[in-house]
Structure formats: structure tokens, C-alpha cells
């Protein structure tokens, strides 16, 4: 069970949150080549180690968060709001 310290609500259990996937992906631009769009859609680093990811505080403040979590130990290094500046 993860204990996620939401910057808005404080420490909350993982089942209040929804997982939003890899947070290192950058939205393709309109004139990007179709293969780059395909890579953005489908390819993932999927590291065994530290992973930056989005979580949604579904049953709390309903804000999107960006979390750095270890995929083996599940240790959480940082939690911050997923603002545009923070993408």
C-alpha cells in the first residue's frame, strides 16, 4: 500500500488515487512526423528503478500530481502538482 503525500490534502492511501502513467512523455506538436507521434503513443522507458508518473487524486482534491516512485521498492521520492511548468 502506497502512502502518497498529496501537496493539497496531506498523506493519503493509494486507493484514493488513479494512476496516469509515464510523466516523461511530451505531447507531440501538430507538425510532428507521424512516426514520432506513434513513438509518443506507444513506446515507454518502463524502467526498473525510479519512475516519473502521473497520479490523479480521484477521491480527494481531484488534482493531477507528478510523482517520482521506485518501481522495485515503491519508495516515493517526490510529489508535486502536475502544473504546466512542471511537465
Amino acid at each position, binding site marked *: 500500500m502506497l502512502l502518497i503525500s498529496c501537496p493539497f490534502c496531506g498523506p493519503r492511501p493509494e486507493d484514493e488515487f488513479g494512476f496516469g*502513467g509515464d510523466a516523461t512523455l511530451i505531447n507531440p506538436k501538430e507538425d510532428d512526423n507521424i512516426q514520432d507521434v*506513434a513513438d509518443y*503513443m506507444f513506446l*515507454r522507458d*518502463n*524502467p526498473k528503478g525510479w519512475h516519473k508518473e502521473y497520479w490523479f487524486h480521484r477521491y480527494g482534491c481531484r488534482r493531477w500530481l507528478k510523482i517520482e516512485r521506485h*518501481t522495485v521498492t515503491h519508495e516515493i521520492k517526490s510529489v508535486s502538482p502536475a502544473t504546466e511548468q512542471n511537465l
Partner: protein
Amino acid sequence: MRYSFLSIAREALNSHKGWTEAWKKPQLQPHYDVVIIGGGGHGLATAYYLAKFNRGLRVAVLERGWIGGGNTGRNTTVVRSNYFLKANADFYEHSLKLWENLTQELNFNLMFSQRGVVQLCHSFHDMEALTNRYNALRLNNIDSDTLTREQLKVMVPDLNYDSDARFPITGAVIQRRAGVARHDAVAWGFARAASGLGVNIIENCEVTDIDVDMNVVTGVRTSKGNVRCDKIGICVAGHTSEVARLAGLKLPIETHLLQAMVTEPVKPFLHTAVASSALHCYISQTDKGELLIGGGIDGYNSYSQRGTWPKIEEVVSGAISMFPRLRGLRLMRTWAGVMDMTMDGSPIIGKTPIKHLYIDGGWCIGGFKAIPGAGWCFAHTIVDDEPHPLNAEFNLERFRTGRLLSEQGSGNTPHRQAH
């Protein structure tokens, strides 16, 4: 040594002193024709079919831990071929047909029991959708049937037939040739048969790097030394991203946890495997009498092989909704495996952009049933340097061409893929 009634009788008289090891423990050689990375069901099956169809080919299986110690020993043992899309249907049916003769072929009792897999319907629309799917199976020459509520009551009397249930049961569909098998025995049987054909099985041998020269593989570096080889097959579902990264590849895969659990053993009362999409849960009873329960993936990237409590609670609540009489039972064990979740929910068996490097992975939550079929197809792919028609659509390029194989149609969201 061939296993038979006579060999058991002979050894009984001989105080069981004559049994030999099931597979040999050879030293790692400096050169092989084909190196298979990963000694689970898929890697061992691939090695077996490589050796069977190509006598004289020098094949090694390199396993980081011990044989069958990964996902082959962690699954819920269901074998079925009830897929909707033609490519999936043909492939899994081929695998099921291999299963039907595998105990005899490997001379190893896999305890394969074709007790049927029942999928519950909870509404008129559920019944329509699943009947459509199971009619598609018939068009692909795969056995399938629908069951009315009354027929289901005779077959599985202990389900919750209360019309006030949150998900009332309106009927079911069934694949009668589907069933369950002894999971460890599959790894051991393939290991023994492959070893008998001259395959070198090297345990405790971790691959630390893959050597590539001019975009062609030349060998692997391992914890037991360097090996030169002509071809490499990766069979490490759960860790495919990590091993492919050694060769510089990035894959359409996320690694997620899938849990399973067993209750304490009780007298036999459940003679088929029963699944419900609405309850996110499926159950079978093992030969020891335990209720073996599985559900969906935990839902966020993890290599930990350690499940979390909220998912156990969800799966157990589904199991109790399905079979209210399970309420008083205690769970004996829970465990988790790590799944290669692909972006369309279908596997990858095929070539890579690097010459003579092949991948069998991306099995999502359903790799166990595919063991013989995948091994068979992957062996063909490696030898011919070209996919067999049965696995041609499981190529890696589909994530660039857009020709996806999605049974669910849920988009590139691995944490929502489950079938």
C-alpha cells in the same frame, strides 16, 4: 530415463535409487548457434522446439534464477483459446491443440485437465456481447457454447443466483476444451525434454549485456562469462523492456503487477474455472482443494513481485459476490508476478530492428496458456528469420504501422488491458 508405470514399479523395488536428474547441469560453452534468454515456460518451450525441429543446432537457455521461478510458477494455470480476433484465435487454438498432446509428447504429467472455462453473463447485453464473441469462436473452428441460467445452475450450483445480487447471473458462455494445468510441471517437462535433445540449460546465469556489431547480434555477456552466438531469443516476459534495453531497444511495454491467491483447501465443489468480467475475478479449485483466485492487475508500473492490499480486497470481494459460501474461508497465500503489458493487449513474437535478435514477450496477463504455441512459433521465427503465419501479426512493427491487435479496444493504456 523414460517415465512410465514400469519405471515406477522398477524403482519401487530398487528403493528409488535409480532415478536420474530430470535435466543436466552443463558448463556454459563459449559458442552457441542460438541463445535463449530466460528459462521459464516460454524460453524452455522455444529451446525444445528448436532442438526438436533442427537436430544438431546448438542451443542454450540462460536463466538468471532457477527454472520456472518467475511467472511460470506464479500464474493461475488457466489454458483457453476463447479469443475474438482471427490472429489471436488461430494462435491460441494452435497452442491449445499442442497442450492436448503435451503430456504424452514430453513424457511428463502436466495434469492438464480440460474441465472447461465458464464466463458469466450478468445482463441481457452481456449475454448478447459474449454470445457474439463465442459465435466468432465457432466461425474460427474453436469449440464454444452458451449456457442458460438453468444449465449453469446444474454445472456450477454454488454461484450466487439471487436476482437481487449486485450483478445478477443471467447465463454464461463456456469453452469446454479449456482447462487448467500443473504450472511447475510445464517448465520441468519442457526443461527435461529439451535437455534430452541436447539443449544446455544454464541456471543462475544472468545476462548483463548483449553484444551488437553493425546492427547484428554477436553474443551475450553473462555473470558466468561471455558467449558468442549467431542468434538471440528473448523470453523474459515481465522484464522484456530491461533486457531489450541492453541492445538499445525501447518497447511498447509497461511492467505491472498481477496478483493471485489461494484459500485453505476444502472438499471439491467447483469442477470448472469460472470468470466474471463485471466482478473482475476468476476462480478455479486446485486438485489440493484450494480455491485459486485471480483478478486484474494492480494498476501502476512495478517490478516488485509484491502485491498491494487494495487489490486483494477488491478481488476477494468479487470472489465472495460470485460464491457467497467462500465467505468463511481464510486465504493461505497471496503472491504477485510482473507482467509485460503491451499497448494493445496482444503479445509480441517476432523480429526486432536488430538482425538476429528476436523477442517473445508482451504477454500481458495471459502467457501461461501460450507456452507451447509461443515456443513453437518462436522457434520457427528464429530458424527461418521470418515469422510463421501464426505469429506474423504479433510483430513489433504494428506499433508503428497502426495495425494493432486489440481485443479490448481500450487504447494505449496498459493498466486498463485485461483479457
